[in-house]
C-alpha cells in the first residue's frame, strides 16, 4: 500500500533526523578542541577570575567561572563587601554579553547616511588615526568645542575621562544617566556636605522606609539592599524589622514590603514632612542628635508644624491620616529607622524637595552615625596621578540641557560617547536626534551598535569587563573604603576590541604635546597600578603586601581591596560640621496639589526594569526570557492599569491600547492590576530599542518617548512621574 511505504520512509528519515539531533554533541571527532595553544587549560577543571559588574551602580565584585577556556558562569565574589558571594539576575546573564552574536567585532566607520547602519571594518590604527585627526581639527579653531558624553562612570574610568576632558582645550564632560538620582546626591550635599550616596547599616536597622526608591529591584544596588533587607527580616532571631514602601506602583520592593503606601506621584515630599510633623508634634525625635549635631532645627520645626499637618496631607497624598500617624510613631518607636529616597520620586520639579525632606526625616530620627543608621562613604586612599596645569574644565553638565540650548550644537564639532545610550533614554522632546545630526563627528565606545551608536560616524568596540583591566569604587557602598579590581581573564580579547581608557591613552599619544604628557602611561593597567600604589602604601585593609608588585598581583587575585577594620563615620562635611536642616529646598513643596481636574488624563509612571535597568541589559536573551516579577511579561512590555481604571475605560487584560502624551504616543498591551493607583499608569523602562542586537531590537515600547524633557534643572533630565497621558483602547485581546 502506498500509504504504508510513504509512512515508512517518513518514519526512517524522521527517525534519523531525531537521532541526529539527539546524538549530535557540540565538538568534533578531532582532539584539537581540548588543546588551546596559548591558554593552557585542563578539561573539566574550573578556574575563577575576579571581575567587577558594570551593569548598575551597585558595583558588585564578581567571580567569573572559566572552563575549557570559555567563560561559562558568573558568581558573586564571597569576599567582596558589596556582593558577599551573591549576584543579581543581570549579573548572572553577563557571559551572554561577551559571546553575544551581534557584538561589534572590530572598529567600524560609517558608510552612507547616518543611521543607515552601513559600516566598513577598519583597523585600530586607522580608527585611532581618524579620531586623532578629528580631535586635532577641533582643537585648531578656538570657537569649537569637543564634548565627551558618558554615563555615571565610576573608578578610574571616570578619572581618565575627566583628565582627558580637562587637558584638551574647550572640552566639556557631559553626563547622561536616566535613573541617576542626581537630586539625592544634591540633597546629601546640601544637608551633610557629602555629595555621595549614603551607606545604610541595614543589617542592624529595624525599620526601613523607601520613598519612591525600588531598592530591591533595579535602582542603585539590588544585591546589597536585598541582603540587607533579608537580614533585617530574618537575620536576627526574635527581632524582625519592617519594610515600608511609599510609591504609586506596587513594585517588587513594595510587594516584598510589609506595608505599601501608594502615595500620589508628587506628594511624596509632603507625605514625608507629614511624618516629620507627627514626630515633631509628639516630640518623638532624637533630642540628643538634634541638639548636638544639627543646625536650623527650630526653623524647620516651625515650618513643618505650620504647613504639613497630616490632616491636610492625607487627602492630597491619598494615604489615610491613621496610617501616617501610625507609621510615623512606629518609625520613632521601633528604630533604628532608615528612610531612602530615589527613582521617580526624586525627579521632576519636587524631586530635590523630596530628597531633602527624606534627609531631614533621617536626621529627626537621629539616624546619622548610629548603629543601624546612616554612614558616609569612605574613599580608598588611591595615590593621585601626577597633577597637570590644566585648562579649567567646564563643570560636568547634564546632556539634556545642552541639547535644549538654542545654539546647542553649533559650538560642538565632535562628540565622544561612552557607557550611555541617550537616544534611547532621553525624552524624544529633548531633540537628541537633531542635536546629533548637527554634530560633524560622533564617535561611540560601545560593544554593541545600539540606538546611539547607530547615529555615530566611528564605533570603537569596547572590551567586556572579562577582557580588560578595570577598577570600581562602588557607590552606594557599605561605609568602608572599597575598591574593586578586575583583570582580563583571557590572554587576548575574544574580538578585535579595546577598552575606552586604553583608546584614550593612544589618542593622547597621537595628539602629542601637553595632552601626551598628561598621560604618561603605556597602558591603562599602568595607570591603574600607579593609582593603586596608594593602597599599597596605606598598608592596611584586605590586601597588605611588602612589595608593590606583590600587592598588585594579590589585589588582582582577590578582586580588589577593602578595609573592614576602618571605623565607620558620619561626620558632616558642612562648614560647621553640623547637619543642616536646609529649608530653601523645601520651598517647592506645597499642598497645592488638588485632585487632578481632567479625569481622562493619567499620570505616567516610569520605573527601571528589574531585568534591564534603564535598558542596558535588554540585549541579553536570558533577561528577555525572564518573566518580570510583577507583570510576568517576557520579551516585551505591558502598560499597567488599575482594575477600576481599566473597567472605566472598558479595557481588559491583553487589550492593545494607545498611550498619548503631549510629546508622543505608543501602542502596547494592557495589564490590569490591583497594585497601582487608579490615577496612574505604569510603564517599565528598558525595552523598545530601535537598535541593540537581535534580541532587543523592536521588543516592547520605550516610555521615554512619551516623557517631557525638563530643562534648566541640573538634577534630572526627565520627570519620571510628572507626565500626563491619555489612553484609548485600540483592539480587543485575541
Amino acid at each position, binding site marked *: 500500500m502506498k500509504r504504508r511505504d510513504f509512512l515508512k520512509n517518513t518514519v526512517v528519515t524522521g527517525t534519523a533526523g531525531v537521532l541526529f539531533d539527539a546524538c549530535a554533541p557540540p565538538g568534533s571527532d578531532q582532539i584539537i578542541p581540548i588543546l588551546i595553544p596559548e591558554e593552557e587549560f585542563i578539561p573539566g577543571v574550573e578556574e575563577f577570575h575576579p571581575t567587577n559588574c558594570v551593569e548598575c551602580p551597585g558595583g558588585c565584585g564578581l567571580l567569573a567561572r572559566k572552563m575549557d577556556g570559555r567563560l561559562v558562569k558568573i558568581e558573586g565574589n564571597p569576599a567582596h563587601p558589596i556582593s558577599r558571594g551573591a549576584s543579581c539576575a543581570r549579573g*548572572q*546573564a553577563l557571559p551572554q554579553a561577551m559571546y553575544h552574536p551581534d557584538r561589534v567585532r572590530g572598529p567600524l566607520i560609517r558608510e552612507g547616511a547616518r543611521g543607515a547602519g552601513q559600516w566598513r571594518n577598519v583597523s585600530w590604527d586607522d580608527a585611532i588615526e581618524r579620531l586623532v585627526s578629528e580631535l586635532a581639527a577641533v582643537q585648531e579653531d578656538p570657537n569649537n568645542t569637543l564634548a565627551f558624553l558618558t554615563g555615571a562612570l565610576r573608578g578610574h574610568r571616570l578619572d581618565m575621562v575627566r583628565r582627558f576632558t580637562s587637558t584638551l582645550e574647550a572640552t566639556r564632560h557631559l553626563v547622561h544617566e536616566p535613573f541617576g538620582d542626581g537630586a539625592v546626591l544634591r540633597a546629601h550635599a546640601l544637608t551633610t556636605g557629602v555629595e555621595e550616596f549614603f551607606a545604610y547599616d541595614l543589617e542592624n536597622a529595624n525599620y526601613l522606609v523607601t520613598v519612591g526608591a525600588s531598592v530591591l529591584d533595579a535602582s542603585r544596588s539590588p544585591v546589597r539592599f536585598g541582603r540587607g533587607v533579608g537580614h533585617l527580616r530574618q537575620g536576627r532571631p526574635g*527581632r524582625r524589622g519592617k519594610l515600608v514602601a511609599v510609591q504609586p506602583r506596587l513594585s517588587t520592593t513594595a510587594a516584598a514590603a510589609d506595608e505599601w503606601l501608594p502615595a500620589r506621584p508628587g506628594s511624596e515630599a509632603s507625605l514625608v514632612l507629614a511624618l516629620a510633623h507627627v514626630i515633631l508634634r509628639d516630640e518623638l525625635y532624637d533630642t540628643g542628635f538634634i541638639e548636638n549635631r544639627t543646625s536650623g532645627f527650630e526653623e524647620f520645626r516651625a515650618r513643618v508644624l505650620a504647613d504639613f499637618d497630616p490632616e491636610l496631607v492625607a487627602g492630597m497624598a491619598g494615604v489615610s491620616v491613621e496610617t501616617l500617624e501610625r507609621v510615623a510613631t512606629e518609625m520613632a518607636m521601633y*528604630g533604628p529607622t532608615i528612610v531612602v529616597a530615589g527613582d521617580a520620586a526624586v525627579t521632576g520639579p519636587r524631586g530635590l524637595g523630596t530628597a531633602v525632606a527624606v534627609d531631614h526625616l533621617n536626621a529627626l530620627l537621629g539616624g546619622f552615625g548610629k548603629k543601624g543608621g546612616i554612614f558616609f562613604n569612605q574613599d580608598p586612599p588611591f595615590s593621585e596621578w601626577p597633577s597637570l596645569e590644566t585648562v579649567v574644565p567646564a563643570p560636568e553638565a547634564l546632556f539634556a540641557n545642552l541639547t535644549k540650548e538654542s545654539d546647542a550644537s553649533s559650538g560642538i564639532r565632535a562628540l565622544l560617547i561612552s557607557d550611555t545610550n541617550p537616544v534611547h533614554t532621553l525624552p524624544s522632546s529633548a531633540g537628541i536626534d537633531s542635536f546629533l545630526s548637527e554634530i560633524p563627528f560622533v564617535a561611540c565606545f560601545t560593544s554593541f551598535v545600539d540606538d546611539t551608536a547607530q547615529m555615530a560616524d566611528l564605533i570603537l568596540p569596547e572590551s567586556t569587563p572579562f577582557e580588560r583591566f578595570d577598577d570600581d569604587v562602588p557607590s552606594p557602598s557599605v561605609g568602608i573604603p572599597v575598591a574593586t579590581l578586575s583583570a582580563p581573564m583571557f590572554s587576548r580579547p575574544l574580538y578585535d576590541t579595546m577598552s575606552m581608557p586604553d583608546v584614550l591613552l593612544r589618542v593622547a599619544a597621537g595628539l602629542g604635546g601637553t595632552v601626551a604628557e598628561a598621560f604618561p602611561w603605556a597602558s591603562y593597567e599602568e595607570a591603574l597600578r600607579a593609582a593603586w600604589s596608594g593602597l599599597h602604601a596605606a598598608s592596611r585593609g584586605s590586601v597588605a603586601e611588602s612589595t608593590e608588585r606583590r600587592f598588585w598581583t594579590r589585589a588582582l587575585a582577590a578582586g580588589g581591596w577593602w578595609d573592614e577594620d576602618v571605623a565607620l563615620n558620619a561626620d558632616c562635611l558642612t562648614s560647621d560640621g553640623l547637619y543642616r536642616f536646609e529649608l530653601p529646598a523645601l520651598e517647592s513643596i506645597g499642598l497645592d496639589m488638588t485632585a487632578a481636574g481632567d479625569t481622562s488624563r493619567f499620570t505616567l509612571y516610569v520605573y527601571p526594569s528589574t531585568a534591564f535597568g534603564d535598558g542596558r541589559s535588554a540585549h541579553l536573551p536570558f533577561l528577555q526570557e525572564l518573566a518580570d*516579577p510583577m507583570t510576568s511579561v517576557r520579551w516585551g512590555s505591558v502598560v499597567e492599569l488599575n482594575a477600576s481604571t481599566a473597567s472605566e475605560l472598558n479595557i481588559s487584560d491583553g487589550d492593545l491600547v494607545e498611550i498619548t502624551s503631549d510629546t508622543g504616543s505608543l501602542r502596547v498591551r494592557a495589564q490590569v492590576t490591583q497594585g497601582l*493607583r487608579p490615577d496612574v499608569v505604569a510603564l517599565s523602562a528598558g525595552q523598545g530599542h530601535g537598535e541593540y542586537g537581535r534580541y532587543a531590537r523592536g521588543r516592547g515600547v520605550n516610555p521615554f518617548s512619551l516623557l517631557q524633557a525638563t530643562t534648566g534643572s541640573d538634577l534630572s533630565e526627565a520627570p519620571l512621574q510628572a507626565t500626563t497621558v491619555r489612553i484609548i483602547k485600540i483592539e480587543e485581546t485575541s
Partner: protein
Amino acid sequence: MPTWGMSIDLDRCDGCEACVVACRAENNVAPAGPEQAAIGRAVEWMRVERHVEGEFPNVRTRFVPVLCVHCDDAPCVSVCPVSATYENPEGLNAQIHPRCIGTRACAQACPYTVRYFNWGTPKWDAPLEQTINPDVAVRWKGIMEKCTFCVQRIRRAKDEAREDDRPIADGDVQPACAQACPAEAIVFGDLDDPESAVSKLSESPRAERPLEELGTGPRVFYLKEGDWRGSVGPQSSD
C-alpha cells in the same frame, strides 16, 4: 549517605529572580524565544511564582520560588513507563535523558508542575553556545528535563572531599540558586545531618512543606512569611 534538601525563606525572598537566571546559566537552559515563550513553553527549572491577594490599596503579595521539591515518594517516578526518572539514594529525583522516550506522563503527574519538556531542539545562536557549562548535559528535543539540585556541584564537592579524604561538610554544596540569592533566602544541605543549617531550619515553626497533604514528602520546604509586630520594643541606639 546524605539526604539533600532545601529550605526557602519566603520572608527573606524579595522576588529579584537572581536564582532564576543563575539556574539557567548553570544548567544550560536555553531560552525558548519570544514565540515559544508566549505559548507557555519557556523552561525555567527554577521560577518565581507571584501571589497577589486583596484589592487596591490593601494588596498583599507573596513571591514563591518554585523548583522540583524532590519528593520522597514522587508521583513522577511511578508513572514513568521506562524508569527514565527515578529517586537516587541521596534523595535526588533524577531525569536520565538518554532513557526518556517523552510520554510526558511524569510532567502531567507532577502536582508542582516543575518538569519541563523539550518541545523542540534547544537553540543557542553562535557563539552563545560558548557559555554552555560542560558539567551539565545539553538536552535535546523530545525529552523531559528538570531541576537536579545542581547534581554536578554535588559531584564536584564529593570529588574534592574524597580528594583530601574527608566527609563532605555542610555548606560544601551550594546549588546555583542558593549561591546567587542576595537575600540568603535559600539554604541547601543534608537533612539527615542534625547539625546542618537546613535541618535546623526544617525544625522552625515557620517551616511548611508544599502540598504535603498529597503525601509526596517534599524535600524542599518553605519558611512562611513572619508578621511584623512592634514586639521588638523601643530600641536604644545600642
